[in-house]
């Protein structure tokens, strides 16, 4: 029996089978087609089901209809079955449309549908005890995984990888490519593919990919430009979908998934259309939902979630967590409801006020503090869910009226008899992350990096596992669970602060799952963390001692704010939050200078040394301001980034970002809410969209910039760091010999300032 890896499972074009992509140890990749058409299920009154079955029987888009019985709810005992119809569509692609039709037939009330939005590949993995990139042996169509997905340490498949980048004719700085531009050359790995004309180049691309046979094709912006442009130009040149193949199997030139804009925790995101390939992974580095997760992390999450690598890399970690819940439920025999039918429980106003609250935070005192210890609960929220068995079906169960697990202040009980679906999903993840974190501490070099990447990937999954409890579309979410988790967390942090104070610590700051404490003389922070962990059954970690930490004020009232501070640990490592260099909209110049300032401060060991270091830091800024004033700063370093909350025509105020959008529109480029626009500030006072800014894509590198505006931005970054010590924007600028003329706050670049109602309507010329 050959041995190797199951790289991926994809749906065939006909939609009645799946393709297994198997890579031999020696490197050869096999395509094995297996007939597979999973049904979805419909439950309802038996006579209505019978009538539905008769109506569906014989339809061309229905392969089969059968009467059966299924377990449809995690709330019910495992032996409870409901009458159901198993409906198998003629092709995977008809699954959702057929389900929509059936749902409408029952006026969205008569029937409940299950397993509709599970993909054929996801179901195949689940039903055959397989998972993406599993080490396997196979014989014909029979594939067996050689180890369970839960294995902690495993050998990664020997992926062959290439990077793909397209260059169009006439491409140069300041001229973004257009859809009509012919392809000049395509870089694939180390090869530069270029034919006598575009048609020859495109044919050579297919040949080169066949020769290199990469398993992973990396791109930077491949979903937004390279792949769709290749498809578009191939179509123009007369190639068919069978001839122009970027994967290992022909794919339609159309989109795998359309682009979308969505809101999460008040932020607007945009996801580009996705161009996945069959038999080959297309990973667009620019489209990773979580930027600091690497291939190793995606692969581990794919193993657990049974979602393909291309899906995991593009979707939010929440999607992966939902898929893991699906895997847990299916392992238990429970089918997955298509539309969740679990409205919020009625609540009194008083209960609603008590329940509808987030985590606990303290307002930190503003200023510099020496010798501060930081403690963090490890994965607090998921740990609470596991420890208190918080899951949609275990909350307020009828079997445990005297449960000791009662959410503080809310009274929600959780079951002590049945292990909830959510905790069952979370427990192995928590153990996995703890293992990776421990191995990270124990190892060095590449091994350490690998464990760090793995721990990071799971961190994001765990973070979303809590948020998804409050997400209305989450299959296994329940808002009361979300409220209970917050209630437990508030109590835990408040208790920790009280205990610490009682033991002589000074509580300086606290945010949700972390506290910053000033120790009493002879304190043993490690012992303190162990004691608290043992008392509350939740692991409290000691993050370390800061030589000094500066808590920064808000700009409006001068009061401390939760997530704005910078501090230097005793081991010389910085922790910074909420300052310019952490923000996505900061230009490279400000980030660079602020990093140099922190480098100066990294030598500081005490408040006295800090005080003496401020002039040295200001001198760095002075030199940068002088260079800026001369107009010689690299333009690339001055590009500001603006997150978009609206389309161009919806903006009501004129800002540099809007000017850049207008310029891009001139070149046929549009940006959607959730995307970003980069620009150079050319003349911030100009009311002309051609002069106010230069869109990053249109920059040539020789345009002039608004030096005063950039000096002000730089001075602001110094104000951020040193305002607790009397360094206002005006004082910083004066030190450098500049007057700040503008009263424009930095929020001029902030998306929120563009949304204030009642401002004059922008008329874009």
């Amino acid at each position: 029996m050959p041995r190797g890896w199951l790289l991926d499972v994809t749906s065939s074009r006909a939609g009645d089978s799946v393709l297994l992509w198997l890579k031999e140890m020696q490197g050869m990749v096999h395509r094995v087609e297996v007939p597979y058409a999973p049904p979805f299920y419909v439950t309802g009154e038996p006579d209505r089901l019978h009538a539905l079955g008769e109506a569906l029987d014989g339809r061309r888009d229905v392969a089969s209809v059968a009467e059966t019985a299924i377990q449809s709810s995690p709330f019910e005992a495992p032996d409870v079955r409901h009458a159901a119809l198993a409906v198998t569509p003629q092709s995977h692609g008809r699954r959702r449309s057929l389900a929509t039709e059936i749902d409408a037939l029952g006026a969205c009330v008569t029937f409940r549908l299950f397993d509709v939005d599970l993909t054929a590949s996801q179901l195949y993995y689940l039903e055959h005890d397989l998972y993406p990139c599993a080490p396997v042996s196979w014989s014909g169509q029979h594939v067996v995984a050689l180890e369970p997905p839960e294995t902690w340490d495993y050998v990664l498949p020997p992926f062959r990888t290439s990077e793909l980048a397209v260059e169009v004719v006439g491409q140069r700085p300041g001229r973004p490519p257009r859809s009509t531009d012919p392809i000049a050359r395509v870089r694939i790995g180390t090869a530069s593919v270029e034919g006598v004309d575009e048609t020859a180049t495109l044919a050579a691309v297919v040949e080169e990919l066949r020769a290199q046979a990469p398993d992973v094709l990396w791109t930077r912006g491949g979903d937004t430009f390279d792949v769709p442009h290749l498809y578009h130009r191939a179509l123009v040149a007369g190639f068919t979908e069978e001839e122009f193949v970027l994967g290992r199997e022909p794919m339609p030139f159309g989109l795998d998934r359309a682009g979308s804009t969505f809101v999460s925790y008040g932020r607007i995101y945009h996801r580009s259309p996705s161009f996945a390939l069959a038999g080959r992974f297309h990973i667009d580095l620019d489209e990773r939902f979580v930027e600091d997760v690497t291939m190793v992390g995606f692969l581990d999450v794919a193993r657990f979630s049974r979602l393909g690598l291309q899906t995991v890399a593009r979707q939010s970690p929440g999607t992966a967590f939902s898929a893991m819940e699906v895997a847990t439920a299916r392992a238990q025999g429970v089918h997955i409801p298509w539309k969740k039918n679990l409205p919020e429980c009625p609540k009194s106003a008083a209960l609603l006020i008590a329940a509808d609250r987030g985590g606990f935070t303290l307002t930190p005192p503003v200023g510099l503090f020496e010798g501060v210890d930081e403690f963090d609960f490890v994965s607090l929220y998921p740990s609470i869910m596991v420890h208190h068995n918080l899951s949609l079906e275990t909350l307020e169960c009828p079997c445990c009226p005297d449960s000791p697990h009662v959410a503080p202040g809310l009274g929600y009980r959780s079951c002590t008899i049945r292990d909830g679906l959510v905790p069952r999903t979370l427990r192995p993840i928590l153990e996995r992350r703890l293992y990776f974190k421990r191995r990270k501490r124990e190892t060095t070099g590449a091994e350490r990096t690998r464990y760090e990447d793995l721990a990071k990937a799971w961190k994001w999954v765990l973070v979303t596992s809590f948020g998804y409890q409050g997400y209305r579309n989450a299959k296994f979410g329940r808002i009361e669970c979300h409220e209970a988790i917050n209630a437990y967390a508030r109590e835990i942090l408040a208790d920790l602060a009280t205990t610490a104070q009682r033991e002589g610590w000074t509580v300086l700051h606290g945010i949700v799952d972390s506290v910053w404490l000033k120790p009493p003389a002879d304190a043993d922070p490690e012992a303190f963390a162990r004691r608290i962990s043992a008392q509350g059954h939740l692991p409290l970690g000691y993050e370390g001692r800061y030589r000094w930490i500066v808590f920064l004020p808000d700009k409006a009232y001068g009061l401390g704010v939760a997530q704005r501070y910078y501090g230097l640990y005793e081991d010389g490592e910085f922790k910074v939050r909420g300052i310019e260099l952490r923000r996505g909209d900061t230009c490279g110049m400000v980030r660079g200078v602020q990093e140099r300032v922190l480098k100066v401060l990294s030598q500081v060991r005490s408040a006295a040394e800090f005080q003496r270091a401020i002039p040295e830091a200001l001198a760095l800024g002075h030199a940068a301001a002088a260079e800026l004033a001369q107009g010689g700063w690299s333009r690339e370093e001055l590009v500001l980034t603006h997150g978009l909350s609206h389309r161009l025509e919806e903006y009501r105020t004129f800002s540099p970002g809007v000017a850049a959008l207008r310029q891009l529109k001139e070149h046929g480029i549009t940006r959607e809410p959730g995307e970003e626009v980069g620009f150079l500030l050319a003349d911030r006072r100009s009311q002309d969209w051609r002069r106010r800014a230069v869109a990053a894509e249109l920059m040539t590198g020789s345009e002039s910039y608004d030096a005063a505006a950039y000096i002000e931005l730089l001075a602001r970054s110094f104000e951020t760091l040193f305002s607790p010590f009397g360094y206002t924007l005006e004082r910083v600028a004066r030190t450098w010999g500049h007057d700040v003329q503008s009263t424009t706050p930095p929020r001029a670049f902030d998306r929120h300032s563009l949304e204030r109602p009642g401002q004059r309507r922008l008329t874009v010329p």
Partner: protein
Amino acid sequence: MGRTVPTYREALDGLLTRWEREFGHSLADPRDREAFHEVVLAARRYIPQGTMMTSGDLVERVLLSLLVDLQRKLRAPDPGPFESEIDAFGNLR
């Protein structure tokens, strides 16, 4: 977390904006204006504690914040451990 019910911070913002518009705005004496500003700051300083209260009465939370702030100021002005090692003028404590 503030899905249905405004957070205490949001509710307080609304209340303080109304107080400013209807009351603070009409204070002519600069000393009164300054005192009003301190009231606003005191209310804001105890937002986390106000959030922990489950009372539906917004003003109760604000009053308690003001009382604690006032009581603190009435006591000896000992800087204590909550004061920065470097003051707002850049001097070491």
